[in-house]
């Protein structure tokens, strides 16, 4: 790859090694970060395609382009790809790897070879998942949640798919171990906990969730395989098992998993907003603390996915109450970001546009989460399209848009070139418009009673479904423009310089692209991450 700055020695060319093996066997966190970035982005596009196909099917009542079994498989694979192959590995794996070590003043992570192994596990797991789609009984049709008893009995390729997810989960665990150790042990001199960029705080909290929650996913997936292959019957009521126990185990991981998705995203926003408002972040300590609080409280609420499952009323009460508690630290972040904007000198480049829309879209998603978290109202909207609208607002409008913000904010650092701003803004506008049309309709449909994961629906739901599908096309158009513009810029755009945005965190103090060792000399940190004056960039 010689399209990048040929004149400076940087991590693209200073190791003397070339070719694909210098990438897939590299232990450089920046190369590994880009490996994660491209693989997860690739799967994101696969997931988008599946989503577009789902929307075409739902455009009109009855069969449009696929039959009911295909529909079940399509939404299952859409979910599995988006959650396990894109957003969970992508946020920590891509931007955590690329940026975090530099932000703490380190040369690399604590265990660089383990880091490479993590990516290989991800790649192997992804291949296994892909294989499951085209072999045996075909792609799984259980929904990404693999609920028993159906997942224990269906003839589709559940065991192989689940083995693939297990492998990816192991990758996630190792990344978590690596990042916790890195942040504890490799901070540069003067980089106290109180001077860490908020993105690092968010990666730290995320890493803890990866370490403590993912093993439960591991054992749950093993249990599905055991049910199918060994006939253990642990969730089979006919043999003394309890299907609700599966749901407990599944959601004990999968609820904290959504915080793996959103915490790094919030960290991106916390880094971007001060830079584009030219103002230190409001309430640094509270934002840092709230990241830990979200990780902790988010581990206590999994039962809110199970209000209609047959769980005890006591459990319903406890989990509903705690769900309201976990909303508090998220709200604190929103208040602090908005307070940072107040009297700031705001410039609306692409990273900031995506960040600002994150704040709005995440808030909508979060508030609808409260409607779902209140047990009484949940009874009405559980398993309807209201849920689908809710989680797309937080996962796509939230984590997704933050991912796009991070792409525009940080990739110029690693490629040394800039994208064109105007097409990026047009792309953002199309995406923001299309997104809201696509998903707001779903929330209305859900309240009106349209179930989720149903192949067909009542004729009265047809108009909103059509509008929603049109929204998906507008969103897709924006996505295409965004990606074409971004990559054209990264490979052929104007040189970015070391600090195109005027940031005060350590990554902006080194050349773009950075050298393999990141720093000539280990930095000595003397100011906070948003102290633009002391950093000399005000």
């Amino acid at each position: 790859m010689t399209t990048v700055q040929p004149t400076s020695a940087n991590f693209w060319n200073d190791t003397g090694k070339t070719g694909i093996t210098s990438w897939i066997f590299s232990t450089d966190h920046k190369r590994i970060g880009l490996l994660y970035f491209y693989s997860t982005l690739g799967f994101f596009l696969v997931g988008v395609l599946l989503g577009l196909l789902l929307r075409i099917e739902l455009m009109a009542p009855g069969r449009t382009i696929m039959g009911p079994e295909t529909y079940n498989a399509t939404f299952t694979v859409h979910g599995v790809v988006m959650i396990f192959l894109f957003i969970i590995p992508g946020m920590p794996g891509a931007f955590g790897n690329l940026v975090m070590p530099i932000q703490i003043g380190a040369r690399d992570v604590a265990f660089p070879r383990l880091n490479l192994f993590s990516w290989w596990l991800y790649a192997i797991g992804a291949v296994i998942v892909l294989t499951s789609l085209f072999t045996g009984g075909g792609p799984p049709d259980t929904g990404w949640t693999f609920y028993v008893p159906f997942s224990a009995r269906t003839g589709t390729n559940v065991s192989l798919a689940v083995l693939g997810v297990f492998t990816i989960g192991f990758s996630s665990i190792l990344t978590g171990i690596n990042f916790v150790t890195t942040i504890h042990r490799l901070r540069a001199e003067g980089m106290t906990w109180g001077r860490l960029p908020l993105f690092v705080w968010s990666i730290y909290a995320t890493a803890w969730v990866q370490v403590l929650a993912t093993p439960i996913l591991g054992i749950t997936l093993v249990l599905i395989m055991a049910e199918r292959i060994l006939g253990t019957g642990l969730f089979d009521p006919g043999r003394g098992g309890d299907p609700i126990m599966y749901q407990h185990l599944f959601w004990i991981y999968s609820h904290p998993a959504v915080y793996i998705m959103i915490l790094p995203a919030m960290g991106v926003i916390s880094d971007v907003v001060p830079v584009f408002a030219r103002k230190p972040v409001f309430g640094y300590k509270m934002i840092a603390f709230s990241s830990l609080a979200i990780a902790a409280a988010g581990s206590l609420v999994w039962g809110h996915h199970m209000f209609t499952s047959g769980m005890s009323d006591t459990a319903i009460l406890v989990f509903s109450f705690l769900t309201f508690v976990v909303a508090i630290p998220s709200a604190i972040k929103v208040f602090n970001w908005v307070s940072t904007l107040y009297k700031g000198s705001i410039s609306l480049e692409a990273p900031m546009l995506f960040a600002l829309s994150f704040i709005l879209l995440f808030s909508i998603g979060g508030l609808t989460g409260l409607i779902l978290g209140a047990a009484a109202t949940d009874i009405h909207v559980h398993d309807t399209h209201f849920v689908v609208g809710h989680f797309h607002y937080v996962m796509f409008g939230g984590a997704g848009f933050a991912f796009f913000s991070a792409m525009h904010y940080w990739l110029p650092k690693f490629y040394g070139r800039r994208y064109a701003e105007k097409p990026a803004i047009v792309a953002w506008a199309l995406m923001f418009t299309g997104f809201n049309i696509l998903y707001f309709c779903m929330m209305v449909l859900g309240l009106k009673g349209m179930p989720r994961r149903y192949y067909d629906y009542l004729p009265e739901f047809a108009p909103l479904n059509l509008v929603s599908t049109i929204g998906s096309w507008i969103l897709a158009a924006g996505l295409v423009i965004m990606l074409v513009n971004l990559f054209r810029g990264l490979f052929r755009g104007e040189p970015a310089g070391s600090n195109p945005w005027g940031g005060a965190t350590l990554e902006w103090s080194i050349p773009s692209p950075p050298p393999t060792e990141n720093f000539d000399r280990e930095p000595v940190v003397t100011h906070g991450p948003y102290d633009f004056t002391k950093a000399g960039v005000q």
Partner: protein
Amino acid sequence: MAHEKATHHIVSYKNLFMVWLVLLSLTGLTVWVAHHNLGIGHVWGSLAIACVKSGLVVAFFMHMKYEGRLLRLLLFLALATLAIYIGFTFFDVLYR
């Protein structure tokens, strides 16, 4: 990078041997307790003895007694997390 003087505390063979003897005795005790009528007390009694045994293994065989506060805190965090997973599930299991 933190350049630390590694305080490699060495646990003597004698101390390790003593811990082993205690572990064997506790094993004998737990088998003895199981064969005497205690009803459901069996489970809690066995778990209590298991906790003591594992505490000894963690403290002396795994050197936790000689490690810093951070590692002890983190172990507590992991165990507390597991306790919550099991405990909160019982809000459901016990009250159906």
